[in-house]
């Protein structure tokens, strides 16, 4: 009873929340609402095509279907790619190994049939596509088998084998961004660039007649939340693929999950090392390890850094950053004198600075977000202290908000970035900027916005090259053989199976005064990481 009461209350509250967002909301909030209504439109459009994929119409029929999906999960097979058809002729086991071996584009059709999951191999696939319906036949709206439900409709719109999350006129794409949490105030920009590119693809006709239906979730820069969102997207919303997730805390744990469920993740942020171990994850930006290598090398060679202190956010990437920096600085007879983990609720910057001063530190390197970094710099200024070589930091610092926050105290700070810096003004950068700012004019261009853009571009191009036959396996194989993709933003991107470390390039930028403002200016690059692992 009480439960019901509180639910009614919450319904009211939700209404209030939406109303307030609609009336006074910022542009971003309105955009959020727009996306939602778009999604709804997508649902409606898909419905006549046969079979709602979300199970939103609950009812008695939806429940058994869900239960079926759940049991197949337990069996260990992927819910995607129709492998859940336990009773059908498909051979789920054949999957990934053979796929990994086949590397040339010519081998693709063979791979597909080996995988078996996508049904028939030929272009005359509409009948074969229908073959991957669950044993239940027409009554069970299979998660992710929308086209076959209505053969006439499917035939008239587009043909081709399809996969989970692909309908006659849409492809469901999952995106997880940083919209709240400790870095939320600039984290949303990271998503907007990639989403701008996806939107542009839609506005210029979509993918061979299909529109991208982008489902957006928030992870608050928290891997746990991110994985919750990922599971919801995969297991309830039945998306086709993930695209351009720029949150390291989500991308890292998502990598094994994507492999397990065989879901492509195109354009991951690549900051964390675990992402390079995934067969289905394609990072486009460089690793924090690479940043640390190049920063250490540059600071040792050009600035004579000998005694370094590092403060880092205590997550796996932060720890890898410290280790990598230490490895390289040792090669130049320097040392990391001490390192200290930081947390958002109590960053400990005051005593870090105090300790750095007493230990005769000449360089402070950081793996931080602009917020904690600003506290660090302010603390140092209050204590009238600045290390000889000032501060440096991973790509997390390369935002315009950083100099805006720190003011003159941050002058001289060096940050790593994986793409051309904003002041380089290359044609590629101008083209990127034109697209992004068309949709999100006030965006703070950083390493990650560019990475998101590149990821979305690769995703769009690869999908286009698939023609009408859009399956996860084919998408993966296509991106796996991507060669020298022109990003226009510095490094070009190439993947090969088992080798997903596509970007080992670092540019360095420094906070410098220009007039009464402070901005990041190009100082070095492209530096290619010679210490990086080769995988």
């Amino acid at each position, binding site marked *: 009873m009480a439960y019901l009461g509180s639910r009614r209350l919450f319904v009211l509250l939700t209404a209030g929340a939406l109303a307030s967002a609609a009336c006074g909301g910022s542009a971003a*909030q309105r955009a959020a609402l727009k996306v939602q209504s778009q999604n709804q439109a997508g649902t409606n459009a898909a419905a006549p095509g046969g079979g709602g994929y979300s199970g939103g119409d609950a009812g008695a029929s939806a429940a058994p279907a869900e239960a079926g999906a759940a049991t197949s999960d337990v069996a260990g097979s992927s819910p995607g790619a129709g492998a859940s058809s336990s009773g059908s002729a498909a051979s789920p086991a054949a999957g990934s190994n053979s796929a990994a071996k086949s590397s040339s584009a010519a081998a693709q059709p063979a791979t597909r049939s080996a995988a078996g999951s996508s049904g028939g191999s030929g272009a005359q696939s509409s009948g074969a596509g229908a073959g991957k319906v669950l044993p239940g036949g027409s009554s069970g709206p299979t998660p992710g088998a929308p086209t076959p439900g209505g053969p006439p409709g499917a035939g008239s719109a587009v043909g081709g084998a399809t996969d989970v999350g692909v309908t006659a006129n849409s492809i469901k794409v999952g995106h997880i961004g940083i919209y709240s949490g400790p870095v939320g*105030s600039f984290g949303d920009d990271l998503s907007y660039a990639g989403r701008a590119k996806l939107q542009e693809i839609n506005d210029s006709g979509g993918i061979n007649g299909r529109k991208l239906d982008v489902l957006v979730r928030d992870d608050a820069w928290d891997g746990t939340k991110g994985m919750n969102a990922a599971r919801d997207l995969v297991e309830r919303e039945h998306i086709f693929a993930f695209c351009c997730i720029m949150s390291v805390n989500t991308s890292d744990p998502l990598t094994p999950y994507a492999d397990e469920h065989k879901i492509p993740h195109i354009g991951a942020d690549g900051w964390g090392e675990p992402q390079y171990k995934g067969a289905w994850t394609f990072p486009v930006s460089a690793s924090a390890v690479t940043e640390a290598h190049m920063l250490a090398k540059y600071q040792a060679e050009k600035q004579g850094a000998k005694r370094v202190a590092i403060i880092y956010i205590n997550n796996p990437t932060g720890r890898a950053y410290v280790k990598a920096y230490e490895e390289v600085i040792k090669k130049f007879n320097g040392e990391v004198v001490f390192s200290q983990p930081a947390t958002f609720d109590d960053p400990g910057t005051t005593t870090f600075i105090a300790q750095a001063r007493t230990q005769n530190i000449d360089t402070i390197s950081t793996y931080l977000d602009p917020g904690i970094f*600003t506290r660090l710099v302010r603390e140092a*200024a*209050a*204590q009238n202290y600045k290390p000889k070589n000032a501060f440096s930091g991973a790509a997390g610092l390369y935002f315009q908000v950083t100099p805006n926050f720190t*003011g003159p105290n941050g002058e001289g700070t060096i940050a790593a970035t994986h793409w051309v810096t904003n002041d380089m003004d290359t044609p590629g950068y101008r083209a990127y900027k034109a697209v992004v700012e068309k949709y999100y004019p006030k965006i703070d261009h950083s390493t990650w916005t560019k990475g998101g853009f590149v990821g979305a571009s690769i995703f769009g191009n690869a999908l286009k090259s698939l023609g009408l036959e859009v399956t996860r396996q084919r998408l993966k194989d296509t991106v796996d053989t991507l060669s020298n993709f022109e990003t226009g933003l510095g490094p070009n991107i190439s993947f090969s199976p088992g080798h997903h470390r596509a970007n080992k390039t670092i540019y360095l930028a420094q906070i410098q005064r220009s007039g009464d403002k402070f901005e990041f200016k190009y100082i070095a690059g492209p530096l290619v990481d010679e210490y990086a692992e080769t995988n």
Partner: protein
Amino acid sequence: MTKLIQTLIIGLEYGCVYSLIAMGMVLVYRTTGVLNIAHGGIGVLAGFIAWDLNTLRGWPYFPAIGAGILVAVAAGLLFERFIVRRLAAPALATVATLALFLLLQGLVFVVPWWGNTWGQVFNSPFANKQVAIPGADYSVSWDQLILFGNVLLFFAGLYFILRRTRVGLAMRAVSDDPTAARLMGIRQKLVAPVVWGLAFGLSGLTTMLLAPILLLDNTSLTAFTLKALTVTFVGGLISLPLTVLGAITLSMLEVSTQLYLPNVKGLSDAWPFLILIVVLVARFARGTKALEDTAVAPA
């Protein structure tokens, strides 16, 4: 030498922050029996209003923070009038402050134009100004000095109010023995608003003093509030001087372990708990009655 000065100044800085929050809590607890958990929430509200006025609406700094503190005081008065007064038992009012805390932390996100609120810069006009300490390679920022100055002022002010003014004496009488205070003709209705207004205003002031040193976000006071709570224990939630002593001790211990024993991981964060155990053992050894809420045996 520099290291020592460093330790002392940083220790004092955080000690002041803990004291400010802890004193507000003790003040409320003593006079009303309510543990004011809303401290962090009120501070956030006041801080964001001041920040809004200053950066979004272009008010000058001091009127903006003044308005922020006024809003906090008003919130205290309203909270007392419409909520605390309706709740007969202090423990219920404690829960109400908890609800208020959640509500206000969320409110910062709900106001649409405050948007995503993690880490806003809210500088005082004294940003980036510091005073060098003679004889040591060290300096104190103006913002820190203002923090120290305010804490001293607040001490002095509180001392004056509690010792010399009618309402202050009434507050002390109420905290000593609420029933006897009623028999003296002290109207809770007059004392309570002063206490709540003062406490909430103090939360607002604390945020204003901290915002230039840290950043302003919706949890900026929460971590401090938790530590301040353990500090109040030292004074048994009763004694103001002991509370301040506890606050300074805690921060000095924390800072000096971090600076002098950086390799003993985790020690500095264990101090609140260790201090608590020491206080308990000391009380136990002295044979003092276990700390509990019951003050007087039933009549």
